[in-house]
């Protein structure tokens, strides 16, 4: 680990891993510090129990078999917000998760670790809608196209295959009058398969001469439905089917021989100096080893924050960087809702030739309806615990059975819950995702009263606008229609609470906190490469590809300006 690298990257998730690989390929020496564990690296055979090594910079350390042992695919073991391997907390699972103050009904779903929140993301990698970028962001959509292409090729991205879920969705969308949209640059309403960062199914998947066990060690998706649990299927770590950044970009970064990753390293301060002309500039970071509690400092020519939409502003504020009224402000979150249709066996026999949909089969989200100006709708097929918690246990409308008719949705409990979950195999769930407004009041700030070992904890607040509510209602109406046209015998809306934090964006907005090359206006040599730099909610489209394209571009900007 070379002391004082050219660049320090804080966070190795959706954006951080991408910029590290790009900078490494250009030839700069890079350190990536990430707060969480590293799965699938032989230097950490028991990453949740022992500290293991300090860092890794060799692609030979990557171990697909180890990854498969660790990524158990059981939803409780992997996704439990308190104790799961994928959670926002230290590698040591005997300890609690790191606290965020969210004074609402809320699920804030982020992960610490190499791969960050992409460890459990569904790999949906659509481009944003051109209209949501042009004439709004300080850059144009057209300027981003070469970077979208580069990321799509590197991950790589391919349209999702059709399984039962998608087939029912396409059938319903077609019958409700929508048409297929064969494009990556979307300006019109239509349905299409999700462009996913998941390798296409192996050509032998349907051939009974190959056992599923064999296929799970071969290249290509096996439609196992474990996207949310990490998916460890493939011949080696870098060829696993689901392309979280720990699978896609991190191995490529290591191959450059210029990039060192250090997990279990929580950055607590960005260090700055005043240059002779009186301007602040970043000179390094202070971090804390999450196992030993020791703090260290390291210097670099450039610091890149890629700690995600909550921790990047928190770190700015805890580092006492210059005051900027937009730091942490303007949080967007795609104000989501779910609508679930339950089908009769006969109806399914007609559409699918089988009496069940089996929502747990195939890509967790493999099909979408784009609705530029409003948002989008996508299919969602999670495992039972996640399904029950999100569809029936989380709502801003109280309890369905006890509500008057004025409030749609609500939690379902008691016998009706068991009945609804009993129909699980014959359900299709659609997630409505709103293009929500940037509002100054929606924010990440420091909690003035509560601290943890890394300083003041973040306090998160989000309340959609009336316009957002109207858009969401409209999407819910469309989703309901699609399910009804597909033949659903009953349709149920959750009316989710707004504080389901999955697609956080725009807390360090371009044009307000960073300039159009993603360098902080007030601190030279300090860049940001995560979802927080988005100017807005990118049309209500899954945000990660946009972040990854920007991170690719930012790497070039850094080199142009400083090297």
């Amino acid at each position, binding site marked *: 680990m070379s002391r004082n690298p050219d660049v320090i990257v804080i966070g190795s998730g959706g954006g951080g891993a991408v910029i590290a690989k790009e900078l490494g390929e250009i030839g700069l020496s890079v350190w990536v510090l990430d707060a969480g564990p590293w799965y699938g690296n032989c230097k950490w055979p*028991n990453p949740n129990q022992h500290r293991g090594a300090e860092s890794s910079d060799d692609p030979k350390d990557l171990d697909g078999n180890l990854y498969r042992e660790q990524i*158990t*695919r*059981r*939803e*409780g073991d992997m996704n*439990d917000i*308190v*104790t799961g391997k994928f959670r926002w907390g230290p590698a040591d*699972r005997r*300890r*609690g*998760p790191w606290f965020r103050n969210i*004074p*609402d*009904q809320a699920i804030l779903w982020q992960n610490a670790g190499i791969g960050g929140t992409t460890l459990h993301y569904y790999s949906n990698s659509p481009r944003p809608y051109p209209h949501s970028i042009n004439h709004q962001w300080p850059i144009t959509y057209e300027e981003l196209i070469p970077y979208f292409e580069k990321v799509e090729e590197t991950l790589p991205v391919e*349209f999702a295959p*059709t*399984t039962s879920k998608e087939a029912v969705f396409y059938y319903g969308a077609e019958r409700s009058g929508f048409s*297929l949209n064969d494009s990556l640059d979307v300006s019109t309403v239509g349905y*299409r*398969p999700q462009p996913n960062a998941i390798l296409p199914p192996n050509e032998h*998947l*349907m051939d009974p001469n190959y056992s*599923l*066990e064999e*296929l799970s060690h071969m290249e290509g998706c*096996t*439609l196992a*439905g*474990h996207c949310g649990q990490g998916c460890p*299927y493939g011949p080696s770590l870098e060829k696993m089917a689901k392309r979280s950044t720990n699978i896609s970009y991190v191995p490529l970064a290591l191959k450059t021989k210029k990039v060192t990753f250090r997990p279990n390293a929580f950055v607590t301060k960005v260090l700055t100096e005043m240059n002779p002309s009186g301007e602040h500039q970043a000179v390094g970071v202070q971090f804390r080893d999450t196992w030993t509690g020791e703090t260290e400092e390291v210097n670099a020519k450039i610091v890149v924050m890629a700690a995600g939409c909550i921790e990047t502003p928190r770190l700015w504020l805890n580092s006492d960087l210059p005051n900027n009224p937009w730091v942490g402000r303007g949080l967007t979150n795609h104000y989501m809702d779910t609508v679930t249709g339950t089908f009769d066996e006969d109806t399914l026999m007609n559409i699918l030739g089988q009496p069940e949909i*089996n929502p*747990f*089969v*195939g890509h967790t989200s493999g099909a979408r309806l784009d609705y530029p100006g409003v948002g989008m709708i996508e299919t969602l097929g999670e*495992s039972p*615990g*996640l399904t*029950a*918690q999100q569809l029936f*246990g*989380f709502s801003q409308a*109280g*309890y369905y*059975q006890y509500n008057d008719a004025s409030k749609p949705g609500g*939690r379902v*409990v*008691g*016998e009706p*819950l*068991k009945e609804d*979950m*009993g129909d*699980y*195999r014959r359900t299709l769930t659609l997630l409505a995702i709103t293009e929500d407004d940037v509002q100054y009041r929606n924010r990440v700030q420091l909690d003035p009263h509560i*601290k*943890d*070992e890394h300083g003041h*904890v973040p306090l998160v607040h989000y309340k959609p606008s009336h316009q957002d509510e109207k858009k969401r209602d409209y999407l819910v109406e469309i989703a309901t229609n699609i399910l009804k046209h597909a033949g659903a015998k009953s349709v149920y809306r959750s009316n989710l609470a707004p504080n389901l934090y999955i697609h956080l964006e725009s807390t360090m907005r371009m044009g307000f906190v960073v300039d159009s090359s993603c360098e902080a206006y007030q601190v030279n040599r300090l860049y940001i490469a995560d979802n927080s730099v988005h100017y807005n909610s990118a049309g209500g489209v899954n945000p990660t590809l946009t972040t990854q394209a920007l991170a690719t571009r930012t790497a070039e900007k850094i080199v142009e300006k400083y090297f």
Partner: protein
Amino acid sequence: MRSTAPQDYTLSTFRALANTLIPPPTNQDELESTPGASDMCIYEYIVYALDHYIPIQTYVYQGNIPLALPTALMINEAARQYAYTNRPPFSYQQATQSNHHFFSSLSRQDRIQTLAHLEDLNLDLYTLPTPFQNNAGLIKHVTDALNRLTLFGYYSEWSSYGSTRLNPPDERYQEFFPLSWYHVGYPGVSLGYRDFRGFLLRIRRNEGGR
């Protein structure tokens, strides 16, 4: 005996909660196939989750704020206030008895109403125990979490860790197939499914002008 009393109190309150959200079947014959959440010890899962949920720094140390006991106290206080207002005559003796299991003494329907009242902050927040006293945000957050924890505990594989369920996460082992997975027809961990029905579209790279 005395030292275990708060623990019994906490567990029995969450047993009532689990029973409220996911009750045992009315028909005893179905107990094996669709047990209630308390038959699957989900209250222990809730207690573990609450006690490990908030690790923060206080003046003296860095550690978890055990939330299970204060949450149980909060639910019982909310139940007391709910019953006092909505279910008279509620005797003076009942109302002043401390540590009474008010929540579990209510009907299932009233327990749900109690949770709804709590979530809507429809009670005197001053009477709640620390850290909930006058802390509207935390009350809402934790009351909501009780629902999610119960449902996730029940429908995930947690119960199948059997005798190891209360061990630290890395020392738990599945002892059987989760009943709830069996009930909903989830096959569990899978290597793959042969349900490939072709591609509707493929991405054409480097063809320009897409």
